[in-house]
């Protein structure tokens, strides 16, 4: 691995990695059963440098912002490298957002360059939000030969002919703007510095190391802080390889493990749970005799791995299970949302450690990680090296707000000093999550203080972001809340959104109104939908500027009995 303490910027570290590991494989890209591409670090440089040069020739310079909206593929990483090489600030956006949401964030970020895939560009162009953003250069990948590019240029042809000039940035400079969520009223663009990434990489790889020959299967979107770190910067600075799949159908994902001898993969809890269900069904289908033997082997494995993982023994004892995962899997990294302990235990008992942890984009990915010494399914692990974790405002049960201080904490939210000041207090990042630290130094999460839900797919949903869908609803006033924010629950699962309605005098929750709410709810992506309605017969408390005082309203609602108050749709 490169000694990252010697580096000032992400670009400088990556540049050296490409030289140091020139003949190692860095990327494999597959589409279904077909392997499309296999690049060494040298090949990667040969693709990236002409792009960097062309960006420079187009006037893109230090501090300029370039956004990537792409599915996980080689061109994502090549483009990001080129942006860093010329001193740019990367704005990775979620390809799953709607075109309007993407334009909104492009505008907010101030990106002047957009690098995207042709199908995404087609949708972006159709949505008509372009005028509001300041995007001047659009590069599209894989456009069909006769495609209407609407002013965009082909990524494959956007190449400079001479060497690009490397632009050095320093540790405190902004490397990227990552949107942790907030596509509605208040985009939350986390300004991540070069130092944030360099320090996070050192901390994470001290526990889950990469080396040449390691293969990381990149499934989580690369715009997400986790995949950016463990599916790009981490493996690249260690000479490891990243495997991209152009389709995420479960059967192809399953086939990729043995085909590419995967070492690590990151998943969201939903996918991990699904994997668990599939495996359990297969175990249950075993004939009685075989099942008994299998259960005995699992029990033996449990005893032998009680103190620490022993991969070689587990692979021997439970060979068919490990072979299905390719036989080289060292750990499944799970993140983006809370994972239920029984799911973590299920995999650990099979000899497959799950690196569960806890993190926020604002904290530079991970804050705590399970170090497996020994494995604990009931916690989110211990703070990573360099992370100070404190529990503030302790309640009588020892639970309080988790606060973090480290060199990985973001510089702040883009264009939002007020929110930054609320979030980072005296150098401590206030996470808004509740928890406690046990006597072994493990963090246990016990609910949230903030008005947010996090789905099992790892999506942060801020209630205020989805309120626009209900604008114009024929009621006096309305507001969306996370139910657990109103009625605090010492739990991280089963989080739901509720729509609070104040009806007009004499109005009732008629079938017609329900239909209207349902119809609007349908416009939201499935994981953003509200679960039920709460009726409140009083005016919402508001500020002088007529904004709803959400915390005061939540306090009033808390007096209602949750079970009786939430009317299901």
């Amino acid at each position: 691995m490169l000694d990252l303490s010697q580096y000032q910027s992400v670009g400088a570290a990556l540049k050296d990695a490409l030289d140091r590991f020139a003949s190692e494989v860095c990327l494999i890209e597959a589409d279904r059963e077909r392997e499309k591409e296999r690049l060494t670090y040298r090949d990667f440089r040969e693709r990236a440098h002409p792009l960097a040069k062309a960006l420079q020739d187009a006037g893109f310079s230090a501090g300029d912002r370039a956004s990537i909206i792409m599915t996980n593929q080689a061109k994502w990483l090549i483009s990001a490298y080129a942006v860093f090489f010329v001193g740019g600030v990367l704005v990775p956006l979620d390809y799953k957002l709607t075109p309007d949401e993407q334009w909104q964030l492009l505008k907010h970020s101030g990106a002047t360059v957009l690098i995207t895939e042709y199908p995404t560009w087609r949708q972006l162009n159709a949505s008509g939000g372009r005028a509001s953003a300041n995007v001047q250069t659009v590069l599209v990948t894989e456009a069909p030969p006769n495609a209407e590019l609407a002013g965009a240029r082909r990524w494959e042809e956007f190449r400079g002919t001479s060497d690009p000039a490397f632009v050095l940035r320093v540790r405190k400079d902004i490397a990227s703007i990552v949107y942790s969520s907030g596509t509605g009223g208040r985009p939350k663009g986390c300004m991540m510095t070069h130092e944030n990434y360099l320090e996070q990489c050192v901390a994470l790889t001290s526990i889950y190391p990469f080396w040449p020959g390691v293969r990381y299967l990149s499934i989580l979107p690369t715009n997400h802080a986790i995949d950016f770190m463990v599916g790009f910067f981490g493996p690249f600075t260690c000479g490891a390889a990243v495997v991209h799949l152009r389709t995420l159908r479960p059967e192809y994902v399953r086939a990729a493990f043995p085909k590419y001898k995967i070492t690590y993969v990151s998943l969201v809890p939903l996918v991990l749970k699904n994997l668990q269900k599939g495996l359990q069904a297969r175990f249950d289908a075993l004939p009685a005799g075989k099942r008994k033997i299998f259960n005995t082997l699992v029990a033996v494995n449990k005893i032998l791995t009680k103190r620490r993982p022993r991969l070689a023994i587990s692979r021997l004892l439970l060979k068919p299970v490990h072979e299905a995962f390719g036989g080289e899997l060292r750990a499944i990294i799970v993140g983006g949302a809370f994972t239920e302990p029984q799911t973590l235990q299920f995999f650990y008992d099979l000899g497959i450690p799950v690196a569960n942890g806890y993190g926020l984009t604002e904290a530079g990915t991970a804050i705590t990680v399970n170090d497996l010494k020994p494995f604990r399914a009931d916690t989110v692990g211990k703070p990573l090296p360099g992370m100070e974790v404190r529990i503030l405002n302790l309640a009588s049960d020892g639970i309080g707000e988790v606060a973090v201080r480290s060199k990985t904490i973001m510089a702040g939210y883009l264009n939002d000093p007020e929110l930054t000041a609320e979030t980072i207090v005296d150098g401590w990042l206030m996470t808004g999550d509740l928890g406690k630290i046990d006597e072994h130094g493990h963090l246990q999460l016990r609910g949230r203080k903030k008005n947010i839900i996090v789905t099992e797919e790892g999506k942060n949903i801020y209630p205020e972001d989805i309120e626009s869908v209900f604008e114009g609803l024929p009621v006096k006033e309305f507001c969306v809340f996370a139910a657990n924010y109103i009625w605090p629950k010492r739990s991280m699962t089963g989080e739901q959104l509720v729509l609070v309605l104040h009806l007009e005098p004499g109005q009732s929750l008629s079938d017609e109104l329900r239909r209207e709410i349902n119809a609007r709810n349908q416009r939201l992506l499935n994981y953003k939908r509200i679960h039920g309605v709460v009726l409140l017969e009083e005016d919402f408390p508001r500020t002088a500027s007529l904004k709803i005082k959400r915390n005061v309203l939540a306090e009033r609602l808390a007096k209602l009995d949750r079970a009786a108050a939430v009317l299901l749709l």
Partner: protein
Amino acid sequence: MRTLEQTTQEVLDLAAKHFQLPAGSLAPEDDFFKKLGIDSLQTLEMLSRLENHFGIELPDYEVQGVSNFKTLAERIQSRL
């Protein structure tokens, strides 16, 4: 060559079969997340079954943001 109506009907029949629902219980305008109570992963599994049936490949990006059977059938039809 199938018509869009035929394709839509085949999509509905296959989805009903895949999720073990009575034939005719799904409608073109139904939102499959809501109606079937499925997540994005189960949707991908359903898509694989549809691909096999129609003998086509439906890239993930083509079905991004699609949530009802009618639109899904249109995307399939354009690749037949």
